[in-house]
């Protein structure tokens, strides 16, 4: 429920309670019949509003999925002003803070028709190089890897059996990412498995010979209004998409983040991985800001039942 409406109701209930407490017997005796009827009607109205708040509101506003995000630019009608300039932090840097999801058009017909499985998904979730004319430049090693990875129809995909959402793949997954930006660090929270990624903005160098991890080790620096994130230390057996495009320990990933306006975040993903690709390549994905909603945790191992269905 909007804060303004809640405040109005609180004010009304306070007045109602005050009215009840000040109604002395003498006052009631002084009331005419008409006045009494009017008071009863007013009391009935407030009781009806109270009942609506207690009974109906929880059904309408489950969690905060429709709760207005405070402090964002809005149009006169109340909708977010997605074309407004990108916000800036107190030190003048572009502020990437907020919830983001791949900029995938919604399917309006789902509002009226039955389409359970019609999920909003980035095409890059299946093939990260889908917009490249010749696709990703796989090495022979990568091509052999992908044959093995696809042999069981996707059962070997780490995402299928609930392993962490690894960046840069995580940008394309059908769960939301929240960016929390501070002067010295950017944190990316991801709904899938309630995961996190740290990007250090304090000037430290990338680690030398790091212990490989799902997200690797990331540092960022500013080039004008673009945040350039460098990552190394990625595990040797990672997937970039559902079709099994590899990324390995030899990879150096450069992500260039630019907030085009309030509503859009452009993420250029450049991969230099000589083990998996014959040459460096880059793709750009666009993220749309998500407002008037909230992050919802998705713990995959809670009830994973798909891996049993694939052929072995």
């Amino acid at each position: 429920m909007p804060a303004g409406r809640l405040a109005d109701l609180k004010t009304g209930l306070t007045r109602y309670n005050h009215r009840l407490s000040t109604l002395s017997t003498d006052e009631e005796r002084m009331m005419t019949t008409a006045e009494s009827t009017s008071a009863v009607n007013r009391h009935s109205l407030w009781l009806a509003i109270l009942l609506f708040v207690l009974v109906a509101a929880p059904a309408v506003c489950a969690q905060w999925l429709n709760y207005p995000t405070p402090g964002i630019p809005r149009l006169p009608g109340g909708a977010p002003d997605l074309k407004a300039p990108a916000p800036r932090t107190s030190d003048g840097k572009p502020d990437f803070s907020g919830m983001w999801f791949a900029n995938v058009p919604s399917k309006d017909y789902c509002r009226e028709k039955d389409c359970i499985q019609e999920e909003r998904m980035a095409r890059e979730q299946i093939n990260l190089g889908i917009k490249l004319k010749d696709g990703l430049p796989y090495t022979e090693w990568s091509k052999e890897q992908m044959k093995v990875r696809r042999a069981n129809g996707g059962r070997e995909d780490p995402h299928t059996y609930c392993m962490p959402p690894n960046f840069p793949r995580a940008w394309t997954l059908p769960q939301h990412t929240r960016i929390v930006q501070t002067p010295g660090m950017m944190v990316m929270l991801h709904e899938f498995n309630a995961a996190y990624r740290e990007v250090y903005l304090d000037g430290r160098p990338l680690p030398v010979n790091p212990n490989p991890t799902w997200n690797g080790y990331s540092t960022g620096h500013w080039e004008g209004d673009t945040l350039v994130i460098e990552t190394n230390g990625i595990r040797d057996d990672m997937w970039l998409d559902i079709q099994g495009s590899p990324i390995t320990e030899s990879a150096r990933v450069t992500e260039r983040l630019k907030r085009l306006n309030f509503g859009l975040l452009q993420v250029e993903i450049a991969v230099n991985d000589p083990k998996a690709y014959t040459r460096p390549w880059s793709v750009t994905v666009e993220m749309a800001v998500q407002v008037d909603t909230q992050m919802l945790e998705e713990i995959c191992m809670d009830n994973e039942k798909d891996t049993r269905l694939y052929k072995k």
Partner: protein
Amino acid sequence: MTARLYLVVACVGVWLTVVPAASAHHSQSEYDLRAKLEVAGTVTKVEWKSPHVWVYVDVLDDKGRKVNWSFELPSPNTLMRRGWTRDSLKAGDGITVAGAPAKNFPAIGIATSIKDSSGKPLFTGTTQIYEP
């Protein structure tokens, strides 16, 4: 509600366009997406959990035997973002499910449509999405 198995497995090529090639966390290749499946029965259990909601339905086959089918839906989060809740479907509800069967297991499927006993689709709509 008395349940009845209606149709199982009819190859329809164009049906591939109804079900996408991937969902929230897997490729869906474990299902025969070319096959059309429709059953009617009574909900016995709903698992409203990640990564996918599962709905269990008692269905009578053509010999009158009760078979408990299990159907996969998207994640609870995806469904909630379209305005549905964990109470949208519950044990005892009479429903008709359309979908595709698992390739390697009986009585398991992925649901693409669920209608109540009056034929009204239960899972429609979406929450407000602002598109830049």
